[in-house]
């Protein structure tokens, strides 16, 4: 049984922590609350006298204290991680136990989809790479950027600098000093730039956007570059079913979608990015600018009818080949777009949409006049909170887990989809 299946989905409301300021140790201050995915625990960095730092979880402080602690994150399987410094070295602590290995710096905690593997970027003696559950890459690089891990967490990739660069050495730079390293091993090919490496769902293949000269953008898959040359290109994505690679590319001043180096969507967009395949690979959607200042979502090249000044957070459903996104104007007046339809609600802020496993329902946290709540299929929960975390559906999609803060307490509510009536 996976962690998500073990969650308590008994309908009803519970208070998980009834005083968010309470802590078993005397503290100077508590930082932002983070709530576990199952909503059972609320954790904060606690600054103690000293100064020293630790984590407070449901009011109980960890035993271990550190010189610094930041970036607390729960893994998808419910473990609490935090980046910590002790005696000048950095490492990552998981549920009050620090990794044995220490590094010059550690950051950007990442998890496999199930949460069983924890990885982070590391710097050791001025060299860069990854550490998996405490074990570093064998080869580290002069620099590593744009880190990414595979879904199963067994592989990581980053853009790496494979040649040294003297100050203001524009010649060497333009000859190429970057590549992509997968599990510490760099591709044979070297480019002027590499960006946005991405794994296929199986974690076996990696694609990235590249620049072969200052003007020649393209895509490389497992180190082999497309022959096509484009004026610009954004990050690629794999078709989960076929393994084909799609990337927005710019030609003659407009954006189109190239799939495996052939133009699949003619370049007629003012912008095209954040493309995403449905998990069955049957549909490809992307955020598209149809006219200057007018954005929407295009599915298989066909734009939805309604346009907005800004569209973000394109999210494919796990099943059913549906797509949702957020629209906004100047970062307010947020609306939810779902399969081309615009929900009625307008919000001051909206958070990333979450689908039920069967793709039948869509939920998200929204904010209006300083109060937050959860909206499911366009209808709001009849109670508002100071803060709502991302909602989650029960495996059968019938119930919604609300994790929220209000009145200095941490609330955990399980409500049927039918309870969202506002």
């Amino acid at each position: 049984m996976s962690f998500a299946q073990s969650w308590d989905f008994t309908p009803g409301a519970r208070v998980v922590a009834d005083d968010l300021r309470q802590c078993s140790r005397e503290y100077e201050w508590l930082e932002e609350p983070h709530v576990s995915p199952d909503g059972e625990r609320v954790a904060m960095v606690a600054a103690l006298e000293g100064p020293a730092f630790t984590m407070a979880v449901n009011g109980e402080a960890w035993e271990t204290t550190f010189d610094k602690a930041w970036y607390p994150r729960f893994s998808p399987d419910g473990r609490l991680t935090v980046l910590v410094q002790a005696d000048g070295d950095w490492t990552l602590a998981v549920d009050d136990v620090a990794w044995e290995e220490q590094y010059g710096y550690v950051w950007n905690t990442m998890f496999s989809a199930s949460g069983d593997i924890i990885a982070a970027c590391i710097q050791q003696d001025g060299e860069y790479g990854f550490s998996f559950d405490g074990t570093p890459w064998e080869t580290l690089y002069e620099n590593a950027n744009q880190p990414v891990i595979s879904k199963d967490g067994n592989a990581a990739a980053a853009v790496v600098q494979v040649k040294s660069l003297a100050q203001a050495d524009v010649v060497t730079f333009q000859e190429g000093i970057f590549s992509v390293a997968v599990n510490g091993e760099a591709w044979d090919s070297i480019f002027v730039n590499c960006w946005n490496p991405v794994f296929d769902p199986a974690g076996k293949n990696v694609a990235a956007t590249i620049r072969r000269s200052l003007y020649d953008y393209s895509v490389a898959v497992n180190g082999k570059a497309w022959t096509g040359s484009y004026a610009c290109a954004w990050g690629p994505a794999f078709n989960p079913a076929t393994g084909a690679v799609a990337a927005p590319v710019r030609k003659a001043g407009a954006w189109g979608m190239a799939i495996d180096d052939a133009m699949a969507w003619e370049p007629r967009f003012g912008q095209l990015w954040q493309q995403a395949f449905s998990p069955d690979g049957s549909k490809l959607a992307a955020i598209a600018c149809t006219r200057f200042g007018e954005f929407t979502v295009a599915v298989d090249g066909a734009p939805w009818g309604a346009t907005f000044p800004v569209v973000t957070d394109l999210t494919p459903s796990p099943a059913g080949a549906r797509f949702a996104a957020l629209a906004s104007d100047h970062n307010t007046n947020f609306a939810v777009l779902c399969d081309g339809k615009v929900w009625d609600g307008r919000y001051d802020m909206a958070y990333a949409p979450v689908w039920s496993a069967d793709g039948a329902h869509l939920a998200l946290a929204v904010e209006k006049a300083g109060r937050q709540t959860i909206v499911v299929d366009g209808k709001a929960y009849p109670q508002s909170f100071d803060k709502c975390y991302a909602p989650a559906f029960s495996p059968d999609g019938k119930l919604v887990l609300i994790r929220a803060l209000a009145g200095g307490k941490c609330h955990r509510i399980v409500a049927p989809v039918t309870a969202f009536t506002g």
Partner: protein
Amino acid sequence: MKTIADRLIEDEGLRRGVGRLTPEKIQKVFKELVAGECGARMKTYMETCVRCGMCAKACHYYMSHKDPSYTPVAKVSQTMWRLFDADGKVDPEVIYQCAQVAYTECNLCRRCIHYCPLGIDTGYIISVVRRLCHKLGVTPQYIQDTAHSHSATMNQMWVKDDEWPDTLQWQEEEAREEFPGLRIPLDVEGADFMYSVIAPEPKFRTQLIYQAAAIFHAAGVSWTMPATPGWDNSNMAMFTGDSEIMARVERAHYEAAQRLRVKRIVMGECGHAFRAVYDVANRWLGWKWHPVPVVHSVEFFWELIQQGRIKLTHKFAEPVTIHDPCNVIRGRGLMEKLREVVHFLCDNVVEMTPNREHNYCCCAGGGVINCGPPFKNVRIVGNSIKAEQLKATGVHWCIAPCHNCHGGLDDIISKFDLNMHTKFLGDLIYELMEKPE
């Protein structure tokens, strides 16, 4: 009349770049650029200029060198007109000259628009010349290196991914000695605003981050900084003419703010960064306006003062003057707010003349200072008019809410022995504010 050919300066980047060109290649790239990227605006400017020379007085280069080849119209006649006249088929050496004019003899400060009876924006024409030079690979070495840094790290100074949070944490620790409990909140989702700075701040001017954190702490505001790339709001790629990298950098900046679900972006005291975020790169990306509102420090400090969130222990007593940075004054109209902030902080303000939207540029902006040592002298001598303007105020303190302006003004101050010091608004607010226990 002298021309650019009489004052060529050797630069490795320019020299190597023209070495790879032929007249045919230049023509091809020029024609593609005109057909693909220059619409009615360029055509109108090319056709309507009546060569009246009214713009001459606008340009600090001309006012300083008193050489007609430095006037705005002469910059255009030596570059774009020449290219149009030859249908783009020019000798590579001409491109060297175009590049030197475009990158090192024009700050894109847009003062000249105000003097042209037809409203011709020479700064725009010169940026198109830069775009051409970028496409031809003829860019000054030093600024090109910053564009390379932007492309690889999303910041201007090769700051690595760990160096950024590490530096902030170190500043936070230092500041806690003075302000117990102060935080530089990293990656806090849902904060009111994301504060972004330019890469020289974590690299050389960390006290500015310290001061900003102290001010925000005293004001009790909800803020955050991204822990990931996207934190640097500067954009030298905009100035080299590499629009694609400019856009990539700006996308990262806006996406950092969108990911953090902040209400808006507050930017540190930098003029060109504001231009990139507020005006140029957002539009290249297809947004008519901003996906997330952007507020320059001048305006943000003004708000904090209006709201009574900053209280002073005393005002700055010595006389000060105000330098109006082009990109936030001509570019955003913050002249009155800037004055209200300065008058709130200082008892004795001596205006330089001309001021506000007619202020002379510092001569560092538009990427000129970033072209580095080879061109430093022309830039400094090229702004004796600014030196005279500063000197005439008779004061020892000059407030300039722009990084590049500080660079440019400091150079002029030392060259012309002006016995002045430059200050950011943040310097003064930090110095004068009531500090929480």
